[in-house]
């Protein structure tokens, strides 16, 4: 069984993510303590809210360095929703802010003229390539979204999945062992649990 640390930096409710991971058999710790996160087999960077405030909180808790350090050590990391956006170099939200810079590219508002933003609801996700993260998921799997901004990866090789809202936007990235999804797997029923189970399996230590 893999242990997974959900980074708690004060942005959004983490209970659903925690319970969904437990449901798929992960051992979960919700923590703001870098030392506790270091002990886990995998790290989840969740988040709901505004990008600049989230980055301030991460820096204050020294969790920005922790994420980079864990990736350097080969530990799988999954960003969810705002957590995906934070992986990028910068966002234009609320005057703009630098992100973690772990994926080349930036975060800008969704361009959906005539459509409602925030984009809320179930949307079919098209997988652009294969990945362990999406094992067993069908070609046009619906996931649940709530967001106003979209990530713009500079390198198309990082794009794992896309969806459409006015424009086709990237909604999943993979740069193993780093992953990120714009949608909420913890609110996406069986498909979301499958994705979290896959991530948990990716995190599982290889038996010696």
């Amino acid at each position, binding site marked *: 069984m893999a242990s997974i640390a959900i980074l708690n930096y004060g942005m959004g*409710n983490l*209970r*659903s993510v925690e*319970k*969904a991971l437990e*449901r798929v058999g992960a051992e979960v710790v919700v923590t703001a303590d870098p030392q506790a996160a270091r002990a886990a087999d995998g790290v989840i960077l969740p988040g709901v809210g505004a990008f600049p405030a989230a980055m301030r909180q991460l820096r204050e808790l020294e969790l920005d360095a922790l994420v980079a350090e864990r990736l350097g050590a080969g530990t799988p990391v999954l960003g969810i929703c705002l957590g995906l956006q934070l992986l990028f170099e910068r966002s234009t939200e609320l005057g703009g802010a630098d992100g973690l810079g772990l994926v080349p590219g930036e975060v800008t508002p969704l361009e959906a003229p005539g459509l*409602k933003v*925030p*984009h*809320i*609801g*179930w*949307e*079919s996700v098209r997988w652009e390539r294969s990945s362990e993260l999406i094992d067993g998921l069908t070609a046009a799997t*619906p996931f*649940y979204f*709530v967001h106003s901004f979209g990530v713009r990866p500079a390198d198309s090789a990082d794009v794992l999945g896309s969806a*459409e*809202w006015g424009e086709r936007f990237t909604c999943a990235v993979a740069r193993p062992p780093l992953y990120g999804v714009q949608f909420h797997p*913890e*609110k*996406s*029923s*069986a498909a*979301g*649990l499958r994705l979290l189970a896959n991530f948990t399996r990716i995190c599982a230590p290889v038996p010696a």
Partner: protein
Amino acid sequence: MALKRVIPCLDVDEGRVVKGTNFVGLRDAGDPVELAARYDDEGADELVFLDITASHERRETIVELARRTADNVFIPFTIGGGIRTADDAQAVLDAGADKVSVNSAALARPELLTELAEVFGAQCVVIAIDAKRAGARDEVPDRAVEPAGRLAPEPGDTGREAEDVAGVMSSWDVYVNGGRRVVEGRDAVAWAREATERGAGEVLLTSMDRDGTTDGYDLELTRAVAEVVAVPVIASGGAGELRHLEQGIVEGGADAVLCASIFHYGTHTIREAKQHLHEAGVPVRLT
């Protein structure tokens, strides 16, 4: 484009589902969380819990319901009934609910919608509106305005048709207390527009004329609201057959359809509803 949603609604009193269900295989048919998990398995896109508990411990019961649901059900859910303040909303959202719906508290103090939207975001705030045709209160326009030469109404002619012939727009009143009390001076369509402009991110629109019948949604009401608000509309009240769900979306312009008895009593499964919508060309999530 966002997939159209099918949303079962569960009425809950003191933590128990109010209407009995015909589901086989449930350990406890009165447990809202077990029923919710079943609906998740069947492909429900979201859930709405409407709490009708009257006791003073109401807030604790809905917070507990939200917590148990979030622990066991992995689709978005809304809690309504008993949300009167930002603190009430905070408590159920912290417990894991995705949205709160407000009804009479917003009518009493419309600023509540703005306060909730500013703290939690419009996507967390649902305005629930119980609407009833104004004609149902025998307040249809004076027959004297009918154009000359109109034939005398046939027996069974409804006030609605009289209004249409008279060229007068249909209108709907707003009700509270489960449809027992009219809110004076509130037009349902205008209220939907005002509530969304004040910060509600979604409208849960129930026809009190159709609620409890199996005659289908009030499509005219649904369309009238969908045309004036810039947020999703959930049609509610009256669904009895699968074609009603299709009508609510295709003819009523709803983004989602809410049902209770059609699923509770096992008339149809959610999977059948989704399949029907899919075959009718409505984009839905198939599971």
